[in-house]
């Protein structure tokens, strides 16, 4: 394809394959390719009808999807910042919390974790081990306790101890389970009563290996509790996580963090240019 001078059906097909294989999805891919065809309909200085040129135009269009929104973690200027971490089962919430606690502590913040998953076997012990690795405290109760009670308890502890950031772990839940989404709404309400504006950041963890369902997850979690940021975990695998392009395109929710492994330091800020580059490779 690199020796082919013209931009034609087969080039379009190859680009479609790159985007679809990266989980960008049919809708966002065809939107991008329509824009691309339109941009290239006008002969742009000759080099754009070469493959490299085509890719660079596509790169610009993808970067456009990611432009114009802040990727900073939201902080509470007036006191305790509360971060609620949510998402479906097994995506990397608990691990990402350990990493984030470590990151924030490295920035000199006083961090506390709350073991809000009072359901799954070993969930509390798992978070306790992460708290220890990250060198931060943890508030926990028994299994079976209402997660809202743990959240409330954690806020009190934070206010008493002068904590800067409270990160709350929640049980994995499928967005299709109404009672579990109601449980999450209740946690949010309780937090809001404890601290004005809390939770200030609601992070949805998305597994980079997930396909189109991640868009539905984002939509439903967003309509239930409002999602202010996305943490894309497991980007160290072969999956490209392209579904976040669809999420940003359709919901304008910024990806803020990227998980790149199973260890404490494997968390980075999301860099759109780096992400798009890796996706189109």
């Amino acid at each position, binding site marked *: 394809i690199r020796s082919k001078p013209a931009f034609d059906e087969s080039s379009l097909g190859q680009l479609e394959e790159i985007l679809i294989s990266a989980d960008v999805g049919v809708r966002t891919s065809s939107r991008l390719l329509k824009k691309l065809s339109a941009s290239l309909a006008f002969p742009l200085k000759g080099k754009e009808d070469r493959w490299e040129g085509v890719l660079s135009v596509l790169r610009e269009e993808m970067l456009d999807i990611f432009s114009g929104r802040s990727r900073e973690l939201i902080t509470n200027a007036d006191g305790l910042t509360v971060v609620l971490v949510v998402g479906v089962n097994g995506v990397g919430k608990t691990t990402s919390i350990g990493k984030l606690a470590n990151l924030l502590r490295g920035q000199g913040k006083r961090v506390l974790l709350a073991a809000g998953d009072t359901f799954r076997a070993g969930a509390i012990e798992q978070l306790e081990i992460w708290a220890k690795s990250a060198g931060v405290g943890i508030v926990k109760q028994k299994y079976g306790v209402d997660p809202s009670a743990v959240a409330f308890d954690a806020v009190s502890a934070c206010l008493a101890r002068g904590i800067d950031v409270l990160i709350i772990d929640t049980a994995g839940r499928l967005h299709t389970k109404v009672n579990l989404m109601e449980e999450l709404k209740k946690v949010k309400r309780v937090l809001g009563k404890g601290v004005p504006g809390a939770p200030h950041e609601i992070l949805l963890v998305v597994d980079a290996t997930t*396909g189109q369902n991640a868009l539905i997850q984002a939509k439903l979690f967003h309509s239930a509790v409002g999602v202010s940021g996305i943490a894309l975990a497991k980007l160290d695998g072969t999956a490209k996580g392209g579904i976040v392009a669809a999420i940003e395109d359709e919901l304008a929710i910024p990806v803020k963090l990227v998980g790149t492994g199973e260890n404490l330091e494997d968390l980075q800020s999301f860099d759109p240019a780096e992400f798009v580059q890796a996706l189109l490779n």
Partner: protein
Amino acid sequence: GISGKLQSVFKKLRGRGKLTEANINDAMREVKLALLEADVNYLVVKDFVEAVRQRAIGREVAGSLLPAQQVIKIVHEEMAKLMGPAPLAGETGTAGTQLNIDGKPSVIMLVGLQGCGKTTTCGKLAFFLKNKGLTVLMIPADTRRPAAGEQLEVLGREVGVPVYSTAGGKNPLQIVEDGVREARERGLDAVLIDTGGRLHIDDELMNELAEMREMVSPQEVLLVIDAMTGQDAVKEASEFEGRLGVDGVILTKLDGDARGGAALSVRKVTGKPVKFVGVGERTDALEAFLPDRIASRILG
């Protein structure tokens, strides 16, 4: 779903006559879109649509079947061909478990990517086998994930199946070797090995699994796959099949609304059957895989 889309493609077709190339192209485009939206891998979709196209070309607008229904019928047939037959009652492996449990003990290894549901599925399988009257031991071979052992122990207590207890410090291969020996000495029927999640591109960890397999010669190596997996399902499945060898697949989290196209991709790439599906977080949430159910789900 796909039926509605195909109906509108063929709405303009009146009376008798062959399906034209234009009709077929439009129909194939709809099939392609439906499968891609269901997360079936791009290349698997290409091959699948081509197989459907070949059968649709030159078909008369036949007797009682509307063209859309004809195409749908072909799609379902091709999918059934690909997914393989539903297990017939009584023809589902040893003792009706869909698993080869002829060993003494029969060793079953659960493998797969991080977070797909191996440990939970281990508990579910333990419950399932116990209810079939087998004596079972679970082996906690994940030494890396924080509290993985505790997680399996809680599940073991819940379903009333023992978990091999290992004093700290052993590596996964040692744990498995000791655990299988213990099961053999106790004359148990089955051993379930819960392995740590790993990336298919992690050479060291994939070699660890190969060594584990070499060491205990499992009757079943089951690849656990999350139903919401996207295009990557092909890469991961072909690596696990190529480097380790897989006997069957378990598709988890089917109680959600993920279409489950990964099932088609994994089947195509490994040729191995999906044996069970996970349909919830509780230890009784395991069902036999029914190919025609996943077909309707994928087609929407």
